[in-house]
């Protein structure tokens, strides 16, 4: 009984209303989950996309450090050792001039990743500016700019790229220029669509009513909110640029021998494929396919992760 009484007796001072502390009252206790953190959480659950990401990170490391640590040089010929099968000395074998396929594969990774990432980045900048202006200005400007895009969209891209390569001559720079001349159109369309949609949202109106100037609205309101689809588009641009580079090299329009790219290596391996030198085709073919696979699953995963409709 005594115990019970003790429990029931609550001192009066406990019932005093807590003093208002304006600092704490408005604070959010749990860490806020930003759009990006939330997207990362969802991406992390997608095992396929994460393994794609891991593969790409490892590939990048090998592309940077592989040729440096290899005892063989990319272009160094060694004719007595031509077309040797993979061994302890040459992990991936050698080609018809005795060049080390292991070193050349990582050098090819450099070329492919560089072309892919550069093409995506340049597309991104041109697309953001063109699509941003078109979507934000609206009206006549938009109609005119979209007419131009519609016509450019109808051009067969790979043919234009081939044409440009023939005219400008084959080199790494010209590949990137040729790819971006045709590639920015898709990005511009996406940016425009996003801007058109978002510029009418209430928070933009609110921002305007506070007196925000156009550059600030573009920088602070529009760009961050259009980033999701843009990043997905960039991730998917990379594999198509890598494919285009390999395709051009395969046609003899890309990087020139003795320098290596995956397309060049596959092209060189073609005449000897019947001689059983499988490693010469296998390694470039395997890595080109794996890289495109990794970028594709990562892009798909990001598409799902960044979709605001799926936000839980």
């Amino acid at each position, binding site marked *: 009984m005594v115990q019970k009484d003790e429990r029931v007796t609550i001192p009066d001072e406990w019932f005093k209303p807590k003093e208002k502390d304006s600092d704490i009252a408005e604070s959010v206790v749990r860490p806020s989950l930003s759009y990006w953190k939330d997207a990362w959480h969802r991406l992390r659950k997608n095992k396929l996309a994460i393994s794609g990401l891991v593969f790409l990170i490892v590939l990048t490391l090998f592309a940077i450090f592989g040729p440096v640590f290899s005892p063989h040089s990319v272009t160094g010929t060694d004719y007595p050792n031509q077309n040797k099968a993979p061994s302890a000395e040459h992990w991936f074998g050698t080609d018809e001039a005795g060049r080390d396929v292991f070193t050349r594969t990582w050098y090819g990774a450099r070329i492919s990743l560089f072309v892919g990432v550069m093409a995506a980045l340049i597309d991104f900048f041109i697309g953001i500016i063109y699509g941003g202006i078109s979507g934000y200005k609206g009206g006549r400007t938009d109609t005119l700019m979209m007419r131009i895009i*519609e*016509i450019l969209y*109808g*051009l*067969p*891209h*790979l*043919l*234009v790229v*081939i*044409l*440009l390569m*023939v*005219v400008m001559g084959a080199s790494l720079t010209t590949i990137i220029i040729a790819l971006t001349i045709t590639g920015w159109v898709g990005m511009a369309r996406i940016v425009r669509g996003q801007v058109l949609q978002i510029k009418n949202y209430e928070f933009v109106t609110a921002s305007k009513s506070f007196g925000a100037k156009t550059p600030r609205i573009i920088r602070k309101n529009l760009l961050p909110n259009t980033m999701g689809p843009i990043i997905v588009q960039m991730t998917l641009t990379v*594999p198509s640029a890598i*494919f285009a580079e*390999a*395709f051009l090299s*395969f*046609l*003899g*329009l890309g990087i020139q021998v003795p320098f290596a790219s995956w397309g060049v290596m*596959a092209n060189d*391996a*073609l005449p000897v*494929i*019947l001689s059983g030198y*499988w490693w010469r*085709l296998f390694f470039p*073919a395997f890595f*080109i*396919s*794996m890289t*495109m*696979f990794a970028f*594709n*699953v990562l892009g*798909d995963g990001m598409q799902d992760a960044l979709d605001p409709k799926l936000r839980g």
Partner: protein
Amino acid sequence: MAVYIVKRFFMMIATILIIATLTFFLMHSIPGSPFDEERTTNPTIQANLEKFYKLDQPVAVQYVYYLKSIVTFDFGPSIKKPNETVNSLLARGFPISFELGMITILVAVISGIILGTFAALRHNGFIDYMAMTFAVVGISVPNFVLATLLIQQVAVTWQLLPPATWSSPLHMILPTLALATGPTAIIARLTRASMLEVLTQDYMKMARAKGLTPFRVVVRHALRNALMPVVTIMGTMLAGILTGTFVIEKIFAIPGMGKYFVESINNRDYPVIMGSTVFYSAFLVFMLFLVDIVYGFLDPRIKLHRKDGDV
């Protein structure tokens, strides 16, 4: 609808004109004449050659001649192959490339739609996972890699099919397979995505409630609506397939237009490059135009709109 077609038609002409102009000025921006070779040609012969190819005229005049040649469909003689014209090369090569392209797109559309439909009907089931795995792999493996792998495994190691040329239906299997896998994968993914969306619509419940057979429900009600996105990408896909024939023809030694095109690139045979680029672009842009019109006829919303206008 008529306004739409006319508008599309002028867009098509504009696109062809742009690519023709682009091709012309790009080709003329290359320094040097095609007749600059190591050995010095007799000046009279040089002058005659330049006269024959109208290279002695000002660029503007050449441009007019060039536009005329496009309209009259006469792309002139090849520079590196004296007895050939661009037209004769196109006449010999293009039918074969066209055949390869058409068989490929047929295979890709049929198998892609079937694969995508079954994947959607068995959503998250075994067939779905298998189909989608195939789709991601199919998109990731470049067609020239697949072609060489097929030659090595199927033709050389297993000796099942002939490794090259284009002489019998058996010879056509490997090139078609190599070229069709990527587009099949894209169509399968697209069909699956739009089928999944369509299957949740109320009119699907309605169709089933009416007691229609599952086959009829899927084919008449779901597929008809789900295939609209597939129709829209047909134009760009055809462009990819036709440029893809270039490498496939090179690998399988198929005597199509791709072979001549790659040859002309390596020989710097400018009239052939110009002629075939313009011809291919015009063909593709025309295909895009056809696809747009077909889409206009298929899309129920556009039809509905026209009916409203008529009444």
